C-alpha cells in the first residue's frame, strides 16, 4: 500500500499509461521506479474515465507479474495437449514458425494460413499488414459479433456508422441491447449525469440490467426479436408522421418503397414476436422520434442475433435517418476516417493482397458485406466521398466459424495453420465443441498469449505477449474515427514478452518480407509515423512519448452536417433507406423480417422440446469476455457462473437459488448455478458468458480447464442457416433451450458435436453446400425507363450506355452525358451542349448547330467549342431537349 510505498518520492516517475483490459482504454497513471511499477491509479485528467477504473483496470499490477503468466516462448515438447513444453528463445521460435508458414504457403498457398483474433486487444493493423504481405485473406476476429456488421450495414445505408453520439445536447438515447452499467463504465457515468439533466433514456434489454434500472422506458423484449421492434418503430414513426419530413425529402432515397414495404409491420404484429405491449412500442417510438436530437447507441446485441441481425441493423439505420438525427448537433455523428493522422487502413497494406487471394477469403461467397465483395464496394464509395476507406481489419475478414469448419472438413480448402492472438477461441467463438475439435486437429498452431488457455494447450508454439503497462496504445476506435488518445508504456515488457507488433514484424522479417515494408522497429516509432502530421498543425513533439506526455490526445473540431458538402458516402450520395449496396450483393434492399435463429413461431417442433428462450453474450462485471478468471482477487468476488431464471419458472422446475443446473440446447449442455430473480421474463434464461476454470491445471483431458463445462458457447449456433447472410453474425441470443437440475451422477457434457446442422450433428453435408438462412436474391435491375434505340442497358451501373461513344443516358432530360466531364450531348446527333450560347457543338469539327432544328449555324463560335463544360442538365435551363 502506499502506506509502505511513497508514490510522491522524487525518484518515482509517473507514466501516462492506459488500461488494456477492454477497449475503453481508460487512462492510468503508473508510478514507476527502477523499471518497477509501484502503484497504478486512474488518470483524473483522462477524458474517458476521469480517474475512474473498474474492477479490471484495478488489477493491472496483479496481472503484470501473475505467477501463471507466460513469460517465455514455449515450444511443444510432448504430444498436442500434453502440456509439455520446452523453453526456446524468441528468435528461435520466430524463425521456426516462419519456416513452417513458408513451407505451408509453398505447398498449399498462403490462404492455408489463418489467424484468429479477439477484440481489439492486439496491434491489429500489424497483423493485417503481415497477412496481406504474406498473401492470406484469412484473418478474422470475433468482429462479426461486435459492431462490425452494424458498421458495414450502416455505412452501406448512410455512408458511415454513426457511432459517436453527441450526448451533450441530445434529448433521447436508446440503449439498444447495451448495458454500459456492466460493460462501459465511463459511458454509464455520462448517461447518469445526462439523465439527471433531462435526457430520456430508453433501454432495450430482455433483462433488468444495471442500465435498465436507470431507464425512463425499459423494453423487456423476447431475446432475439430486436428486428421486429425496430421495424414496428419505423412503422409508428412513418404512419404516425413523426419523421423528419425535410431531411427525408432532401437527403433520403427509397422512402416511398420503404413506406409501402413496412406497411404490415405494425406494433400489433411486432407484439407477437417481441412479447411487448404494442402501446409500449408506440410509446418508445414516439419518445425517440419526438425528442430530437436523439441517438441510438449501438450494443453488441445487434450483431449477435444470427440470421435476423442484418435486417435489424438496417432498420436501426433507417430509424436514425427518418428522425433526421444523422450528423446533426446532439445526434448520431459520423466522423468519417481521419484526415489528420495515418489511419489503420493506410497501415494495413491492403493493396498488396492479390485479387485472386481476396477471392479465396473463406466465407466471402456467403457473407458478403463483411468480406471482400462488400468491403470493396463500400471502400470504393468511401474513398470517393471521404477520401479514405474504413479499416479492412475487422470490416473485411474471413468468416471465423467457417474457418474452423474448414479445418475440420477441408471445405472449401484445408486450413493448415493458424495464429491465435489475443483470444481464447473455445470460449469466445460459437459452437465451442466444434472449435475445440478444430484446434485439436489443426496441423500447426501458434498462440500469442498471456496465459495457458485451452487453445494454447494445443499449440505448437506459445508466444509470450506484453500486456497492460508494457505497451504503448493508440486508442482510435478500430481506426474509423477522427480523434485519438495515446498512451505510453509504463515499463518495457518483462521477461521475454514482446508486443504483438513486434511479433508480427519479427515474423514478417523472418519469413522473408521486405524490411522496407516494416520500417518501424518499435510500436513507438510506428505511432510516431501515425501522428507525425500533427506537427503541421502546430503540435510540437519529437517522439511519440513526448506527444503522450505533452498532449496525450487529439480531438479535431466537430463538424456537423458534413453531408451538406459531399453528400452521404453511398452510391447515390443520399441516405439509401432502400440500400443499393445490399441489393447489389444479393440481399433485401429493404429491411425484411426474418425470425431469430430458433424461435417458437418458426420452429414449433424445437420449441416443444426446448421451451425456454436463451440469451447469452451479455457482459458482466468483473469479467471481460473470458479474461480475469485467473485473477484470484477478482475471482474471489465472483467464483462461480450464474444463470438467471424467473422465480415463477424456477418454482415450476423445482430449482432453488444457487442450485447447479444444466442449460441445454440442441447443440449441447452446460452447467451454471441458478440466480433466481425476477429480472427476466418467465420464458427467458440469461446465461453468463466466458466461463472456464483456469485453476484446473491438472485436468487437461478432453475438456482442458473445464472449458466446456460452463461455457455458454457450447449452446450457441454457427450453422450456416443460423448465421446472418448479410454480415455473417452467428446466433448467441434468442435460442431455444431447456433447464433442469444437475443430478449427483451427471458428468460434464463433452460429447463433441462436429459442425453440421443443429438437428443432426455431424458432417453429412460439406459446409459450402449447407443451406443459408435465405438464398441470395439475384441482382438483375431493370431499367426504370424506356431504353432508347441504339443504347445498351447495363445492370451494374444501372445506366443505358452508348457503347460507341461511352456516353450515358439521362432518362430525366433525355440527353446523353459524359460520366466524368458531365458534359451533355444530344441523343440523336451526339453533339455537345453549350449552355452559354444555347447551341449544340460537334466536338470533332467545332461546328455549331441550332438547339431546336439541329441546323448548322455560322462558324463563328467554333473556336470556343473545346472549352464547353456543362454540369447543368439542359432541361434545368428551361430549354428542354427533345
Amino acid at each position, binding site marked *: 500500500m502506499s502506506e509502505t510505498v511513497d508514490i510522491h518520492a522524487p525518484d518515482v516517475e509517473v507514466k501516462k499509461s492506459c488500461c488494456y483490459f477492454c477497449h475503453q482504454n481508460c487512462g492510468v497513471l503508473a508510478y514507476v521506479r527502477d523499471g518497477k511499477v509501484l502503484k497504478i491509479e486512474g488518470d483524473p485528467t483522462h477524458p474517458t474515465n476521469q480517474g475512474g477504473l473498474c474492477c479490471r483496470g484495478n488489477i493491472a499490477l496483479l496481472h503484470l507479474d501473475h505467477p501463471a503468466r*507466460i513469460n517465455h516462448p514455449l515450444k511443444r515438447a510432448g504430444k498436442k495437449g500434453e502440456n509439455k513444453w520446452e523453453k526456446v528463445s524468441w528468435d528461435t521460435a520466430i524463425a521456426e514458425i516462419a519456416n513452417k508458414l513458408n513451407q505451408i504457403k509453398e505447398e498449399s498457398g498462403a490462404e492455408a494460413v489463418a489467424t484468429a483474433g479477439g477484440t481489439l486487444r492486439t496491434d491489429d493493423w500489424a497483423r493485417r499488414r503481415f497477412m496481406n504481405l504474406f498473401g492470406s485473406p484469412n484473418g478474422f476476429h470475433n468482429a462479426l459479433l461486435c459492431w462490425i456488421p452494424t458498421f458495414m450495414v450502416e455505412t452501406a445505408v448512410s455512408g458511415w456508422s454513426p457511432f459517436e453520439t453527441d450526448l451533450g445536447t441530445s434529448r433521447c438515447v436508446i440503449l439498444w441491447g447495451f448495458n454500459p452499467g456492466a460493460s462501459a463504465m465511463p459511458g454509464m457515468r455520462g448517461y447518469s449525469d445526462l439523465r439527471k439533466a433531462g435526457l430520456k433514456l430508453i433501454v432495450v434489454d430482455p433483462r433488468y440490467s444495471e442500465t435498465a434500472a436507470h431507464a425512463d422506458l425499459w423494453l423487456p423484449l423476447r431475446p432475439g426479436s430486436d428486428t421486429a421492434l425496430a421495424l414496428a418503430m419505423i412503422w409508428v414513426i412513418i404512419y404516425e408522421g413523426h419523421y423528419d419530413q425535410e431531411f427525408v425529402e432532401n437527403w433520403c432515397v427509397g422512402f416511398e418503397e420503404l413506406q409501402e414495404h413496412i406497411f404490415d409491420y405494425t406494433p400489433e404484429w411486432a407484439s407477437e414476436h417481441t412479447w411487448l405491449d404494442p402501446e409500449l412500442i408506440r410509446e418508445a417510438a414516439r419518445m425517440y422520434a419526438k425528442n430530437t436530437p436523439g441517438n441510438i447507441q449501438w450494443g453488441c446485441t445487434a450483431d449477435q442475433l444470427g440470421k435476423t441481425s442484418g435486417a435489424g441493423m438496417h432498420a436501426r439505420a433507417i430509424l436514425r435517418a427518418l428522425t433526421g438525427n444523422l450528423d446533426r448537433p446532439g445526434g448520431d455523428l459520423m466522423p468519417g476516417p481521419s484526415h489528420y493522422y495515418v489511419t489503420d487502413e493506410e497501415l494495413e497494406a491492403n493493396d498488396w493482397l492479390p485479387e485472386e487471394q481476396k477471392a479465396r477469403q473463406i466465407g466471402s461467397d456467403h457473407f458478403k458485406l463483411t468480406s471482400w465483395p462488400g468491403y470493396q464496394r463500400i471502400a470504393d464509395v468511401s474513398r470517393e466521398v471521404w477520401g479514405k476507406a474504413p479499416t479492412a481489419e475487422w470490416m473485411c475478414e474471413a468468416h471465423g466459424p467457417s474457418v474452423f469448419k474448414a479445418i475440420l472438413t477441408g471445405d472449401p480448402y484445408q486450413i493448415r495453420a493458424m495464429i491465435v492472438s489475443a483470444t481464447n477461441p473455445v470460449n469466445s467463438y460459437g459452437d465451442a465443441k466444434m472449435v475445440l475439435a478444430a484446434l485439436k486437429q489443426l496441423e500447426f498452431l501458434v498462440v500469442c498469449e498471456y496465459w495457458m488457455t485451452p487453445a494454447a494447450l494445443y499449440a505448437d508454439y506459445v508466444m509470450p505477449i506484453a500486456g497492460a503497462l508494457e505497451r504503448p496504445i493508440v486508442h482510435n476506435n478500430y481506426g474509423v474515427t477522427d480523434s485519438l488518445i495515446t498512451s505510453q508504456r509504463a515499463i518495457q515488457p518483462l521477461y521475454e514478452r514482446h508486443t504483438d507488433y513486434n511479433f508480427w514484424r519479427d515474423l514478417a522479417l523472418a519469413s522473408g518480407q521486405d524490411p522496407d515494408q516494416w520500417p518501424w522497429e518499435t510500436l513507438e516509432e510506428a505511432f510516431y509515423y501515425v501522428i507525425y502530421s500533427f506537427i503541421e498543425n502546430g503540435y510540437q513533439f519529437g517522439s511519440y512519448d513526448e506527444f503522450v506526455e505533452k498532449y496525450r490526445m487529439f480531438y479535431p473540431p466537430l463538424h456537423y452536417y458534413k453531408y451538406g458538402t459531399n453528400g452521404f458516402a453511398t452510391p447515390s450520395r443520399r441516405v439509401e433507406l432502400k440500400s443499393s449496396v445490399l441489393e447489389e450483393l444479393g440481399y433485401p434492399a429493404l429491411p425484411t423480417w426474418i425470425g431469430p435463429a430458433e424461435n417458437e413461431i418458426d420452429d414449433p417442433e424445437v420449441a416443444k422440446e426446448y421451451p425456454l428462450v436463451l440469451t447469452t453474450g451479455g457482459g458482466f462485471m468483473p469479467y471481460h469476455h473470458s479474461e480475469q478468471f485467473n485473477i484470484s482477487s477478482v475471482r*474471489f468476488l465472483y*467464483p462461480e457462473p450464474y444463470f438467471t431464471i424467473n422465480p415463477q419458472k424456477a418454482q415450476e422446475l423445482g430449482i432453488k437459488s444457487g442450485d447447479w443446473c444444466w442449460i441445454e440446447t440442441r447443440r449441447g449442455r452446460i452447467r451454471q448455478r441458478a440466480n433466481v430473480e425476477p429480472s427476466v421474463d418467465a420464458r427467458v434464461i440469461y446465461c453468463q458468458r466466458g466461463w472456464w476454470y483456469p485453476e484446473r491445471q491438472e485436468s487437461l483431458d478432453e475438456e482442458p480447464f473445464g472449458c466446456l463445462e460452463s461455457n455458454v458457447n457450447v449452446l450457441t449456433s454457427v450453422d450456416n442457416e443460423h448465421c446472418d447472410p448479410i454480415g455473417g453474425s452467428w446466433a448467441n441470443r434468442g435460442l431455444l433451450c431447456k433447464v433442469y437440475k444437475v443430478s449427483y451422477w451427471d458428468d460434464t457434457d463433452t460429447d463433441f458435436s462436429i459442425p453440421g446442422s443443429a438437428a443432426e450433428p455431424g458432417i453429412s453435408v460439406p459446409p459450402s453446400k449447407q443451406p443459408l438462412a435465405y438464398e441470395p436474391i439475384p441482382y438483375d435491375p431493370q431499367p426504370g425507363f424506356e431504353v432508347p434505340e441504339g443504347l445498351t442497358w447495363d445492370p451494374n451501373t444501372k445506366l443505358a450506355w452508348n457503347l460507341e461513344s461511352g456516353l450515358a443516358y439521362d432518362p430525366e432530360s433525355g440527353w446523353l452525358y459524359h460520366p466524368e466531364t458531365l458534359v451533355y450531348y444530344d441523343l440523336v446527333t451526339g453533339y455537345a451542349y453549350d449552355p452559354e450560347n444555347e447551341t449544340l457543338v460537334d466536338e470533332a469539327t467545332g461546328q455549331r448547330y441550332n438547339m431546336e432544328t439541329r441546323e448548322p449555324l455560322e462558324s463563328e463560335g467554333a473556336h470556343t467549342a473545346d472549352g464547353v463544360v456543362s454540369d447543368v442538365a439542359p432541361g434545368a435551363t428551361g430549354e428542354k431537349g427533345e
Partner: protein
Amino acid sequence: MSHKMQTNKLEKHYWIWPIAWYLFLGGLGGGMLFTIGIIEMVFHAGYLLALGVLVAVACLGIGSMLLIFELGQPKVFLRVFLSATAIIKWGACLLILAMGFGFVYFLFYLPPSWNLFWYSWTWLRDLCAVCMALFGLCVVVYTGVLLSTMKAKPFWNTPALPVLFVASALSTATAALSLLAGFWPSADAIIALFAEQADAETVVSSYLPLLTHEIVAILHQYDTMLVVAEFIILLLYVLTMRASGNVTAKAVALEWISGGKALLFWVGMVACGLVIPFLLYQTGGTGAEYVAPVLVLAAGLLLRFLVVYSDRRRAMPGEERFYSRLPQGDERFLQGWKPPY
C-alpha cells in the same frame, strides 16, 4: 495459515474454543472463589474447601493463558492495561485481583505443621475471603458483560446474558466444590483444630466425613436452587430471543430451538445439564454425589460453547446474498497459481 479461509464474515467466528473455555473457567474459578468466600464468612468452614481455592485460582490462570494464547499478537499483550475504558482491561485486572486474593487466602490452609508465620493473621485471611468473594463475583459477571456489550451481536447484546452466566457460573462452581470438599488439606486443618486431643487421627476419621457430608449437602441444596434458577433464566433467555424483534437474534434462537444446535441445546444442555442433575440431587446417593455435579460442569462448558458460537452479526440488507456467493474458502484458485510450464 493453511486452514480453510472463512469467507462469510456474517458467520465467521472471531472468538472460538479458547474463548469458550476462558469464559467457562473464568466463571467457574470466579464462582468458586465467591462461594468459598461466602462459606468462610458464614460458616467459617473454608478449610473444608481449601483445595477448591487452589483449583479456582488454577482455573483463572489457565483461562487467562487461553485468552493470551488466542490473541493474534500475544507479544503486545502487556498493552492491555493502557486503556481506561476497555472491558477486557477490567477483566484482566479483576482476574489478577481475584487470583491474588484467592492465592493469599489459600496460604492460610497450607499444612499447619509447616508452621508458617502468617498462620496467626486471621484478619488477613478473613479480608482475603471477602475480597476474593467480591472479585470472584466480579469475574463471573465480567464473563457475561464482555459478550453482552458487543453491539454487533444481537444474541449477546442483552443484559440477560450476564445474569445467565452468573447463574451458570455459580452452579458450576458449587458443583465443582461439592466434588472437591474434604480433600487435602482439609484433614490437616482439622488436625490443627483438634490438636489438643490425643487421637487426632481418630477425630479426623470420624469428623471429616461428617463435616464434609454436611457441607456437601448444603452445596447440593444450593446447587439445586441454582440449577432451577439457571433453567428458568436459560429458557426465558432463549425464548425471549426467539420472540425478539431482531431478525438475527431470532434466527440464532431458532437455531437453538429447532436448528443445528437443537440437539446440543435440548438434550445436552436442558436435559442432561439441568433436568437430570436436578432429579439426581433429589434422589441423592452416588448420582447426586458424583454424576450430577459432573453433568452440571459439562453443561456449563457446553453453554459457553453454544453462546460463543452464536455470534452471528446482524446483516445489513444484501450482505447475506453477497457473502453467500463468495467462495467457500478451499477453492483451487485460492491456493495459488502454478507457472504454466
